[in-house]
């Protein structure tokens, strides 16, 4: 057996151990044992992914009792990259969970579900045929639903969120099943190796592409199928949110890559344009909602929609440019898609773990009630800060390199003679730039309001820093974000080899060179240059600080008065007010201002109460009517069933007559 096969076997064995230890032990022992075993599953997955990336191949046939051909596990390099990504996120989330879980989220069901969820997520990219893919997909979907339900006994919103999630995830499953059925019919096989290179001309291929794209888009949280994200992520325990948001949605993007790059590579133009529109639309919509969100985990969930939108837009761009004969820029775009995916996994895991640490220390998810946490939770603040830099695509983080790569692909994808490219590329550039700008506002708000300034509620004042078992994973995540930003060359080269593109190679100082477009970026050299130019200023600062130490503890400016109430600070709602006002038509917030006047005079207000709600427009306009229609239909169908035995006997009789008529005719 080769290392890849051993790795796959080890994952299954470790997952069984994790489930067994979750069921057999209790209390703190269970957390430690099951958590370590889960970290082992994820770690084995990461190692397997690495050996696949290094060139290891395997084809494991698993015969099952099901009436289907044997399942095949045969990860290719792209699958290996995803296994590595999912495994790395899985390790830090599992270790974090040891210190984080408490109460309902520490139950044996939850730990067992976590182990199965991790295993499912590893098997999806390892699958080599349709059957294995679908079974692993369903394992992942079902286990994650259990994880979302963790605190259902305490909050009714959890049950609501879980219903939305279960419906959307199974809708996605059904669409993918139908899509693969159409694809297998068109390609005449269920194995991915045989399906690769299926023609894209026939109606079967078109139907398969549309069904699969919509199915995977629902899992990736793309608008308009994103509605489960902002509900499920806030309600799930934070380690599960991190896994779902950093790892599971990436598998949605993997599905789109599988279909668009591996199975049906010669995409017609409209497929590519569809993906770009879907992706760019999700990016702008997601970041707008993240920008005005005040619930920290909801904000992060919407930002996931944004980032996966960017990934899918990059995939679409690569398909478009390849079809329109701009191969250099196309390979840069596909490398950009993978770099975006990897950097998103790193910073989103860090951010969700940080949000979880805040939630555990203060019981708050509402940014409007946070503030000043940098004093009580310095480690969490630092790691969340690094994650925010990554999410805002600023140097020197993985997000910055990924976005730079995408912009390079766009700027070199110039074909004035080709009308489609000439129109699509600059529009995409504008939308991506707007997304990047709003991401800056969003994450300055998230970090600045939560961690800086003064505490806005009493709960936040008594916050204690997270224990070491939670701090270490957060620090590892933050280091990952920085490492992806400082030494992007090897990652980009691995990503290029994963999709078989000659797109990127390592340049000096661990930098990245995009060979297709002839662009070089070495973030380490940028940091070096920054250090050189900043050196004189730094020396001067240190000398002056020694000569004249600053006087701390003076009063902040209050227009000449002493204004000490923390309620007078800007909070998350007011911070986002300009954005809300500018994009009022797109967001459609509902505001309520109630002024209570003094009894003596209506000119004096005693109290002013302001409340604001931002409902998801897509949910309100698209899904609510659908749900209402389904309800109405069900209501009408209930009239048929009134509980009367006579009526049921009548139905049976009619059915029997109908059958007789059919058989006789």
């Amino acid at each position, binding site marked *: 057996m080769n290392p890849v096969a051993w790795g796959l076997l080890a994952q299954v064995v470790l997952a069984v151990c994790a489930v067994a230890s979750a069921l057999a032990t209790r209390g703190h022992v269970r957390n430690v044992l099951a958590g370590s075993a889960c970290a082992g599953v994820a770690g084995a997955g990461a190692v397997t992914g690495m050996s696949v990336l290094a060139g290891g191949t395997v084809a494991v046939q698993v015969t099952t009792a099901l009436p289907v051909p044997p399942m095949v596990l045969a990860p290719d390099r792209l699958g290996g990259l995803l296994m590595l990504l999912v495994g790395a996120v899985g390790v830090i989330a599992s270790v974090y969970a040891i210190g984080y879980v408490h109460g309902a989220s520490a139950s044996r069901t939850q730990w067992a579900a976590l182990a199965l969820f991790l295993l499912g997520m590893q098997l999806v990219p390892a699958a080599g045929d349709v059957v294995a893919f679908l079974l692993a997909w369903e394992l992942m979907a079902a286990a994650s639903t259990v994880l979302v339900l963790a605190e259902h006994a305490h909050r009714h919103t959890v049950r609501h969120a879980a219903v939305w999630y279960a419906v959307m995830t199974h809708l996605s499953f059904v669409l993918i099943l139908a899509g693969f059925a159409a694809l297998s019919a068109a390609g005449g096989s269920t194995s991915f190796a045989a399906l690769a290179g299926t023609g894209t001309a026939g109606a079967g291929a078109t139907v398969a592409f549309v069904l699969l794209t919509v199915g995977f888009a629902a899992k990736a949280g793309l608008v308009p199928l994103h509605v489960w994200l902002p509900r499920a992520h806030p309600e799930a325990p934070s380690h599960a949110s991190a896994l779902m948001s950093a790892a599971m949605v990436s598998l949605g993007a993997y599905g789109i890559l599988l279909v668009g790059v591996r199975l049906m590579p010669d995409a017609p133009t409209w497929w590519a344009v569809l993906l770009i529109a879907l992706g760019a639309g999700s990016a702008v919509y997601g970041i707008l909602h993240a920008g005005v969100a005040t619930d920290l985990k909801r904000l992060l969930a919407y930002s996931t929609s944004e980032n996966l939108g960017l990934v899918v837009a990059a995939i679409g761009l690569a398909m478009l440019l390849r079809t329109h004969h701009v191969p250099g820029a196309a390979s840069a775009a596909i490398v950009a898609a993978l770099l975006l995916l990897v950097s998103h996994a790193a910073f989103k895991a860090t951010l969700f773990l940080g949000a979880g640490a805040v939630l555990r220390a203060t019981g708050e998810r509402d940014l409007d009630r946070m503030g000043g946490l940098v004093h009580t939770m310095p480690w969490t603040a630092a790691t969340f800060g690094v994650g925010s830099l990554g999410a805002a695509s600023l140097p020197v983080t993985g997000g910055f390199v990924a976005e730079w790569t995408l912009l390079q692909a766009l700027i070199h994808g110039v074909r004035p003679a080709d009308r489609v490219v000439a129109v699509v590329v600059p529009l995409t550039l504008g939308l991506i*730039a707007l997304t990047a700008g709003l991401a800056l506002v969003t994450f300055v708000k998230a970090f600045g309001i939560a961690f800086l300034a003064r505490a806005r509620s009493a709960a936040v004042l008594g916050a204690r820093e997270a224990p070491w078992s939670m701090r270490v994973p957060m620090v590892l995540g933050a280091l990952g974000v920085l490492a992806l930003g400082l030494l992007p060359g090897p990652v980009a080269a691995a990503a290029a080899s994963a999709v078989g593109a000659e797109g990127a190679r390592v340049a000096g100082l661990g930098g990245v060179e995009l060979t297709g477009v002839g662009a070089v970026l070495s973030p380490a050299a940028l940091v070096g240059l920054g250090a050189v130019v900043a050196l004189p200023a730094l020396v001067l600062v240190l000398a002056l600080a020694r000569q004249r130490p600053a006087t701390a503890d003076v009063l*902040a400016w209050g227009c000449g008065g002493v204004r000490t109430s923390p309620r007078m*600070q800007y909070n998350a709602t007011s911070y986002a007010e300009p954005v809300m006002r500018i994009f009022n038509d797109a967001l459609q917030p509902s505001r309520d201002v109630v002024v209570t006047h003094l009894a003596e005079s209506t000119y004096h207000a005693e109290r002013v109460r302001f409340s604001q709600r931002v409902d998801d427009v897509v949910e309100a306009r698209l899904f609510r009517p659908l749900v209402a229609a389904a309800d109405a239909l069900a209501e009408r169908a209930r009239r048929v069933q009134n509980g009367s035995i006579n009526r049921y006997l009548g139905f049976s009789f009619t059915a029997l007559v109908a059958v007789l008529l059919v058989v006789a005719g």
Partner: protein
Amino acid sequence: MSVAPLVVALVQVTVAVAFAPLVVGVTRQTRARLEGRVGPGVLQPARDLRKLLAKTPLRAAGTSPVTVVAPVVLLTSSLLLAALVPLVAALPLSLVPGDLFVAVSVLLLGTVAIALLGLDAGSAFGGMGSSRHMTISALVEPTVLVSVYALSIPVGSSALALIVAARRDHPASIASPAGVLAVVALVIVVIAETGRLPIDNPSTHLELTMIHEAMELEQSGRDLAWVDLASWLRLSVLLGLVGNLVLPWGVAGSAGFGPVLLGALALAGKLALLAVLLAAAEVAMAKLRLFRVPELLAGSFVLAFLAVTASYLVA
């Protein structure tokens, strides 16, 4: 990395630091003269800087290390920007291309630093300035990238040094419709990013209309000196970039002493001209209402997009 471009980049940073207080001095002096005042002279900003550096900084109670670090980060970002943008010479560095995306990211790093600085003291004004500043930065971003896209189409690269060199070598492209539209869009962006009229009034101290000033309200002593120097540097570097795009003559194409000296002198001339023009335009203009600013920025985006369209017609 070859040494010559690196040395030139460091020379550029030194020149920019030397010129930045003078650029601000010239705008203030011009403004004073046009308004019928005597004015403090062009050296006043440099004297202010010296005075601030000698003072003990005061920091509000409850501030975090962000208050200490952010001014230095802001300054570093401005210095790095001066090294990346072709001011004196158009020589690309081999490992860090003076790519516009990199330059914009470095600029935004400074923007984020000052926005966090505004929030840190926990006063209402700091938060207000920070929120407005970030919103404007977000809306500026599409224009920046699309206008640079338009400028890069004829050159085939987004490296600023190559764009400037191409315009110097083929002056016909400066007056092309695409070039003019893209530069006009960039000028609006530069005004927004540096907080000048009509988007922000750099001399206002009325709390409700401040943007930039509101964020540095809590700063004093050397903290304020760094924030001021960084903002002045940012203004000078971006004006220098606009100057080199419109009048690319004199920008050194090699690393010799003569060309670099000529480049520095040419830069001084361009900056003086633009500073006077900026001040003259500001005297004639009133500040826009905050919520009219998006309309202006949307207009600049349309210009940038027209520039892309126009560049297709030529190509």
